[in-house]
């Protein structure tokens, strides 16, 4: 009998029942909840007079709406200026209270972006099925869990039944061979993958990221990669469990207790694809060929290497694709064949569930240390992913490095990734951003987003335009 993939194992171990027509009932171990996609779910539960199936299998935090300035955050929920945002955050607090759900409120020192705090706390564990009303839930797959985004109706469904009705996806292996070059990061790796397979390349698949270059990544690096699986169309991305995974989980607040640790570890170490596992599709890349990436357009697939130019739509054979590229360049206010390194920037954002963890901040700090933000940069924000990341960064003196250089050191939250709070781009402004989406208007009405790694964003902050961070001294 053919071997199983990691996805097969995760799926099968959670199968409650096969239903009609290829659908199945899958058990969900953990649901993360935030303030934007849950109010209607809780309201539905209330109206139907239902209780959560298992309140303790849920964990909540407000992250999308929260302000990131220290002065506003000093006042807790009352510091939220936008009345509609305030209602939404207060609703989450009230709902979690009513339904007995654990919440890291805005005042909690452990509070932060949901996909940062979950793994950090040891709540995300290998072998789990994890959902959240947020497409970047794929992040948690880095720890060998099956994790994906869902809509609000399914949030309510999981609250009420602890299950999802689902159809099993196909298996894709993205194998990155060799070694990433100096200055080339997990973010560049995943942007290169999306550039290769496109924003719908993974639709209908769960992607397993493998190969030596992926194995060589730290757990935080793997989270960056899995975070953007959805940008390639795959709802979930997974990485096999190895020594790094086990090491990462040791001693975290919610990690298994001493008595259960050995049993858990032993189960976790089985979480990898069998040697003879069958994948429906295999994509291979050579890590050595990957340069620092910069997105130039309005979709994560519109990326180029730092040493290259913005493509010329006229050279694109496929008519539809040519049209997409033309439209993107008009929106971005960019000309074909412009050198990526000549793109001038207005703002810089270092943050988001993709890149706001301690390793990301260290990388950015190392680049800006002793330098100053360029004159043409109106604002450069550094938004740590959680209170604990912020505290650790401060302990290491990273905050001082950023502030000295003229960047702003903020409180945790989703911030300018999707600009639901006051951290927004002005119309027509170009931003070097460590986030995950460059859609039209994503970071603000008329805003122009360029997706890059933390070091690349930091270098851009200090020079005012994109530079090849591999040559940085």
């Amino acid at each position, binding site marked *: 009998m053919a071997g199983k993939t990691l996805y097969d194992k995760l799926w099968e171990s959670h199968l409650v*029942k096969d239903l009609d027509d290829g659908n199945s009932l899958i058990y969900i171990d953990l649901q993360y909840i935030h303030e934007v996609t849950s109010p209607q779910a809780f309201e539905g539960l209330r109206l139907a007079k239902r209780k959560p199936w298992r309140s303790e299998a849920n964990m909540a935090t407000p992250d999308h709406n929260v302000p990131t300035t220290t002065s506003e955050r000093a006042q807790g929920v009352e510091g939220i200026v936008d009345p509609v945002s305030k209602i939404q955050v207060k609703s989450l607090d009230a709902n979690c209270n009513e339904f007995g759900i654990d919440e890291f409120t805005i005042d909690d020192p452990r509070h932060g972006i949901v996909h940062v705090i979950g793994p950090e706390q040891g709540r995300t564990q290998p072998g789990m099925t994890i959902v959240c009303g947020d497409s970047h839930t794929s992040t948690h797959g880095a720890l060998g869990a099956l994790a994906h985004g869902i809509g609000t109706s399914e949030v309510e469904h999981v609250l009420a039944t602890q299950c999802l009705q689902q159809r099993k996806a196909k298996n894709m292996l993205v194998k990155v061979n060799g070694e990433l070059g100096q200055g080339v990061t997990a973010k560049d790796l995943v942007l290169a993958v999306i550039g290769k397979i496109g924003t719908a390349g993974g639709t209908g698949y769960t992607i397993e990221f493998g190969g030596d270059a992926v194995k060589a990544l730290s757990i935080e690096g793997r989270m960056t990669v899995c975070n953007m699986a959805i940008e390639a169309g795959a709802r979930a991305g997974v990485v096999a469990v190895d020594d790094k995974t086990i090491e990462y989980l040791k001693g975290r607040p919610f990690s298994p207790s001493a008595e*259960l640790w050995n049993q858990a570890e032993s189960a976790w170490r089985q979480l990898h694809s069998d040697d003879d596992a069958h994948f429906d599709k295999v994509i291979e890349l050579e890590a050595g060929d990957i340069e620092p990436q910069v997105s130039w357009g309005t979709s994560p697939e519109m990326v180029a290497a730092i040493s290259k130019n913005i493509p010329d739509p006229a050279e694109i054979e496929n008519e539809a694709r040519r049209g997409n590229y033309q439209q993107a360049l008009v929106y971005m206010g960019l000309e074909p064949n412009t050198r990526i390194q000549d793109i001038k920037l207005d703002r810089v954002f270092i943050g988001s569930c993709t890149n706001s963890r301690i390793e990301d901040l260290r990388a950015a700090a190392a680049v800006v240390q002793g330098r100053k933000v360029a004159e043409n940069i109106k604002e450069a924000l550094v938004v740590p992913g959680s209170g604990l990341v912020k505290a650790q960064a401060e302990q290491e003196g990273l905050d001082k490095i950023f502030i000295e250089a003229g960047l702003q050191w903020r409180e945790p939250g989703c911030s300018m990734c999707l*600009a639901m709070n006051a951290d927004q781009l002005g119309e027509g402004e170009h931003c070097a951003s460590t986030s995950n989406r460059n859609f039209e208007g994503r970071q603000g009405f008329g805003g122009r987003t360029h997706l890059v790694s933390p070091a690349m964003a930091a270098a851009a902050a200090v020079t005012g335009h994109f530079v090849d961070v591999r040559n940085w001294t």
Partner: protein
Amino acid sequence: MKKFIKEKGLVIPLNRANVDTDYIIPKQFLKSIKRTGFGKNLFDEARYLDKGLSDEECSHRPLNPDFVLNQARYAGGSILLAKENFGCGSSREHAPWALEDYGIRCIIAPSFADIFFNNCFKNGLLPIVLEEDIVNTLFEETNDNEGYGLEVDLAEQTILKADGSVINFEIESARKNSLLNGLDDISLTLLHADAISSFEESWQQKSPWLFT
């Protein structure tokens, strides 16, 4: 849940590939804690010339005359014709809510993003996948014929054109049944409550650390 049985309506062509859910309903409108009222902000950034604010009256806002929803010939349309990878990006269910609230009952495209596709069925909205060349033909016909309409019959899995020709479409039978009968997913799943409890018990035996 809302049923879908048949829809006879005017077609609105949205000639743009990779329409993401930020385009469908921008972030500021996600602050609402309600399930309704998103229709006025559907495709907000393309539809209006100014920047939309959450909780704002829209009747006075300047309209983009070039946007399809603002063109008189498409007023009252209920069938959205779209291009590939419709609904990509964020999982926000506010996207189908906005479409539904606007009056769209059915979306026809060569392909849909996974999470969006799934969310449609939770809201009585029927997403239909058709071959790219068939969709392109529909775009041409819609463009060339003012008042172009289609008649969608879910039970028969057919789309009837004005000239009497019929297009057949595929749909998973469980999803079809759910839409035709307006079934409540949660009630259906709770019929398997015993199986869920029983799974939970054995899962707890195997992985006790997940239940502390």
